[in-house]
């Protein structure tokens, strides 16, 4: 907080309301600097205004505190809409596998072949989960373990031959996915629960920021159609924030709320703790069984060292045929086998996730030895169904290609909303301290020649650069590392992540140097340029290191592969264009230049005196 707002002593307690005048992103924003100097807020504002201002204050600070983290969560979550595609692209060894129609009855033979291969490899397997190949993932992936409650291992198989596919070690798109909800930093997760809590706190702040943002907006529908890039500076940033914020507001509310609900048993277990309290403490196992529409004994709780009998031989064909009949021809998504709490071996057939909105899909239980149908499991009661639909909307497994791209676009808009909000804070702050600096400067000319933004502002500007430009750079480097790191490196998947975090760390160092230590206009353009270069070079690197490049995938019409390369190229060009717009030589010379377009530079929006916009740039 800066110290110059002259809040009357007596009103200090009620400061949010007073301060709001300076921080309000609503209609009063244009006058913000002036108001900060001499607050005109009446001592007892009418309640509606006071409420709006308090919410505006809350919006600003809730948004600032975890905004950078939210940006990272939002962007990696957006990339996760294409998790399967990233997984595929980052394992070029899987090229050539034909996408399968999950409704094809041949799927049963594929599953049996894969199971036979698994049993040959691990005769003592006690549990396995087999998502079957479909139009997005052409391989058979088996997760298996031969322990009671140990970690699952992964086996990837050719759907036609049942042979193991030897792919490079990588987390692929799973990294974005895991980072998105638990800030995963290594292939074998550490601090997963802590990471989920941090993400949960950020999500709650986003929820608060969304609600307070809506309240702050007195002219929400008018702003919907208002974008004034030519006004330049703060106005343009505010408009950009409003447009990206309002345009797909329902999406943000849905994604935030469902994000909180997906981990509700972690974040808000109070209801479970009271309603499921029994004689022997809280029976959360019963809760999860109810939530999934299962019987409690079907999902046993075992210790890590408990011995479990290996599974018997299983004939999948008749089971899958019957499952298909029961679902009236519906697609089969995955099959799994385990021993239930009574020790009986059961096969669980899960319907394809793309068959309906609600998550999880319905399941059928069969006896593993006889193949006899036992039970079905599905959530059917209204509140639990609502929860399932929210869950499904968040995961977007139901979406086909077109809808998936639309959701991807919404996610990008959300990232932009957060980014413009962060920049808006910076721009507004430096505009304000500039006003103050020049006022002081009237008395002390030497001081005015070298106004230096307060440390806090410079720090925010630095982290803005490190996050908003650094994360795209890190993502590009991560994908490039997938092609550049030799295949036989020990712990290769973690080396890829090391590239990701090193690139991000370098961006942070650069940003600190450029914005905090020695303000410079290079701050934004260099990391953005590097990011653009990394993304644009991806198709080239791909062509030099694999045979799955555009030269072969385009003529063959393999759009899953070619689409990735083309999207990388487009991303690179976009980032490069941004970097070019922000290049040092393009400093705003006056109102006309500053007004041309909104930019990702705080300097672009500074007041128009040339010497000032140069000397405080990057801050």
């Amino acid at each position, binding site marked *: *907080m800066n*110290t110059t707002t002259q809040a009357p002593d007596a009103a200090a307690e009620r400061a*949010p309301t007073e301060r709001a005048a300076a921080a309000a992103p609503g209609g009063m924003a244009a006058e913000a600097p002036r108001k900060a100097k001499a607050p005109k807020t009446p001592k007892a504002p009418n309640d509606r205004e006071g409420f709006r201002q*308090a919410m505006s204050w809350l919006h600003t600070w809730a948004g600032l505190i975890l905004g950078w983290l939210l940006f990272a969560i939002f962007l990696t979550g957006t990339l996760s809409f294409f998790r399967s595609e990233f997984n595929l692209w980052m394992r070029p060894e899987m090229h050539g596998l034909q996408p399968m129609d999950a409704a094809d009855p041949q799927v049963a033979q594929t599953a049996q072949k894969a199971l036979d291969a698994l049993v040959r490899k691990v005769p003592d397997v006690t549990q396995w989960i087999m998502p079957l190949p479909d139009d997005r993932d052409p391989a058979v992936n088996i997760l298996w373990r031969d322990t009671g409650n140990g970690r699952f291992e992964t086996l990837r198989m050719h759907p036609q031959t049942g042979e193991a596919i030897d792919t490079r070690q990588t987390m692929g798109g799973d990294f974005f996915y895991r980072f998105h909800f638990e800030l995963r930093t290594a292939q074998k997760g550490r601090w997963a629960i802590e990471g989920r809590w941090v993400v949960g706190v950020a999500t*709650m702040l986003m929820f608060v920021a969304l609600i307070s943002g809506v309240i702050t907006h007195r002219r929400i529908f008018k702003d919907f159609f208002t974008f004034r890039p030519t006004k330049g500076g703060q106005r343009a940033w505010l408009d950009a924030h409003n447009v990206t914020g309002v345009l797909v507001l329902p999406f943000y509310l849905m994604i935030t709320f469902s994000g909180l*609900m997906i981990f509700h048993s972690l974040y808000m277990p109070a209801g479970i703790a009271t309603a*499921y309290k029994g004689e022997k403490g809280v029976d959360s196992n019963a809760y999860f069984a109810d939530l999934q529409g299962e019987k409690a004994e079907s999902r046993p709780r075992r210790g890590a060292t408990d011995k479990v009998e290996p599974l018997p031989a299983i004939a999948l064909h008749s089971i899958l045929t019957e499952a298909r009949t029961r679902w009236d021809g519906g697609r089969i998504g995955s099959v799994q086998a385990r021993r239930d709490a009574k020790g009986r071996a059961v096969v669980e057939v899960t319907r394809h996730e793309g068959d309906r909105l609600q998550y999880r899909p319905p399941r059928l239980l069969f006896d593993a030895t006889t193949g006899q149908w036992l039970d079905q499991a599905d959530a059917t009661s209204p509140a*639990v169904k609502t929860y399932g639909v929210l869950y499904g909307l968040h995961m977007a497994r139901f979406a086909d290609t077109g809808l998936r791209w639309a959701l991807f676009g919404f996610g990008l808009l959300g990232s932009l909303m957060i980014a413009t909000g962060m920049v808006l804070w910076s721009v507004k702050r430096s505009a304000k301290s500039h006003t103050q600096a020049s006022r002081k400067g009237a008395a002390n000319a030497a001081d005015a020649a070298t106004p230096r933004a307060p440390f806090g502002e410079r720090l925010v500007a630095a982290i803005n650069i490190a996050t908003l430009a650094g994360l795209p750079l890190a993502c590009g480097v991560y994908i490039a590392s997938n092609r550049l790191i030799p295949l036989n490196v020990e712990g290769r998947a973690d080396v890829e992540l090391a590239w990701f975090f090193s690139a991000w760390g370098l961006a942070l160092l650069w940003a600190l140097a450029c914005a905090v230590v020695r303000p410079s206009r290079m701050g934004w353009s260099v990391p953005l340029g590097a990011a653009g270069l990394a993304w644009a070079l991806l198709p080239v690197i791909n062509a030099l290191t694999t045979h799955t490049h555009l030269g072969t995938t385009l003529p063959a019409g393999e759009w899953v592969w070619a689409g990735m390369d083309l999207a990388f190229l487009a991303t690179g060009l976009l980032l490069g264009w941004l970097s070019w717009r922000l290049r040092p030589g393009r400093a705003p010379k006056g109102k006309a230049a500053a007004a041309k377009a909104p930019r990702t530079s705080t300097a672009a929006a500074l007041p128009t005196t040339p010497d000032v916009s140069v000397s405080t740039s990057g801050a």
Partner: protein
Amino acid sequence: MKTARADWRYRLAITSRAVAAVGGGYALAAGFTAALSLLLAQCMPRVEAVITATMLAWVVYAIAAGWAFYARTAWGAWGGTLLPALVLGACAMAPQWMKAAA
């Protein structure tokens, strides 16, 4: 600076409000979830009660956080979140206490 003292008090008040919003708000939301889960479980399946209460809890949390910054004083922020949290918590614990007493 003339406003130094006010600024120090201001920061303390804001910190207090923020803690009230996060901690007090969570306590209120959790108490609300616990009490409503128990109440609804009387007339619907347990899992329905818990999910309904938990979904509403986030809205309660958001309102509580808003209140913490809207209240006239930081004390009001604390009172407005913790008092109802205590009442709701007591309601949620009441059946157990009564069972223990009986």
